[in-house]
């Protein structure tokens, strides 16, 4: 069985690389990107992750905009937002609902909670793929 591909996108380099290493220890195939442009370039180059862990607040393009770009490109990729924002994520408007993330986890996150969410997100993506979506 192939490993679940996870992409961590966070401008805090130390956070992204350490989390990626910890997820790899747990059997995921994890890549870290430190800006949204690199993450989107990676996805557009057909390096499709199963699950993206995406920081909400980043320079230039924020997490919600990036989520929309990812979902427009491939709706089966599941995105889990990571945020230090106390008020959660601003899910307002029809478009925001259309491109909603799989879940939103507050920083600092618990690794066990995170791995559970990744596996649940992967199960959802697999179900979408089985239905022929996003192909």
């Amino acid at each position: 069985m192939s490993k679940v591909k996870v992409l961590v996108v966070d401008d805090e380099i130390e956070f992204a690389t350490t989390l990626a290493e910890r997820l790899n220890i747990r059997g995921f195939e994890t890549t870290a990107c430190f800006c949204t442009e690199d993450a989107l370039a990676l996805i557009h180059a057909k390096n499709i992750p199963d699950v993206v862990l995406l920081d909400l607040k980043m320079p230039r393009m924020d997490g919600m905009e990036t989520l929309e770009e990812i979902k427009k490109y491939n709706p089966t990729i599941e995105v889990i937002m990571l945020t230090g924002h106390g008020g959660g994520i601003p899910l307002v408007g029809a478009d925001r609902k259309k491109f909603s993330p799989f879940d939103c986890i507050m920083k600092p996150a618990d690794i066990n909670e995170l791995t559970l969410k990744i596996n649940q997100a992967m199960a959802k993506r697999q179900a979408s793929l089985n239905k022929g979506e996003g192909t």
Partner: protein
Amino acid sequence: MKSRKKERLREMQLAFIGKLMAGLSHEFKNHLAIIKELNGLIEDLLILEVPGQSVNSERFKKIIPGINERIAQAAEMCRVLSGFSHRMDQPLSSINVSDVLQEEIYLLRRFAQQKQVHIESLFDGDLPAIFNDPSLLQFAVFCVVWPALELLEKGGRVVITGTGKNQSVEITAILEGKMERPENDTPWEAMLPQVLEILGAEFSRRINEDGNEDVAITISSIENSYRDNT
């Protein structure tokens, strides 16, 4: 001052404090998240350690300074936050303009980074002490710098300088870079005349040939009685 104007000022000051606190708490959570991940990585490596084999001490030696660095940064944030909060304890006091504004610039730095605008300060070392309202001075500078951070395009630069002039201090915000100005002043800029009146400060704005702006606030000491009358 009419009560509605006072009320509006209070609202805007609360919004100013709220914006800085929101940015700071977000940044603080980032430090905690990194400490948690680095600590978790040590835990992972220890659990994965093969019995009978020595612990990979070299790997740990690389991780532990990262934790210490983040704790130091979080502690520095708390120190600045404490100073910022105590500025409001005394509406009028003898202030070092450099200290008061360096503190504010520290808190604004995160927003500047998000916008990819560079912010820096350059204060003369021998600024005269000013008897005035430190919290309101921070608010006045915020009313100048915040719209610039919002309007300046990526690569812009904000330089805040402080120069002694007799018994006054001239604070200049040099705003460099492309900036799309709206037709009307932002709510922050619209608030500025009222704030400057309370501070007894003078104001000037100059647009240079290259399009960059110099915004100057000159602040002096005021009497308690002056404040009572504004």
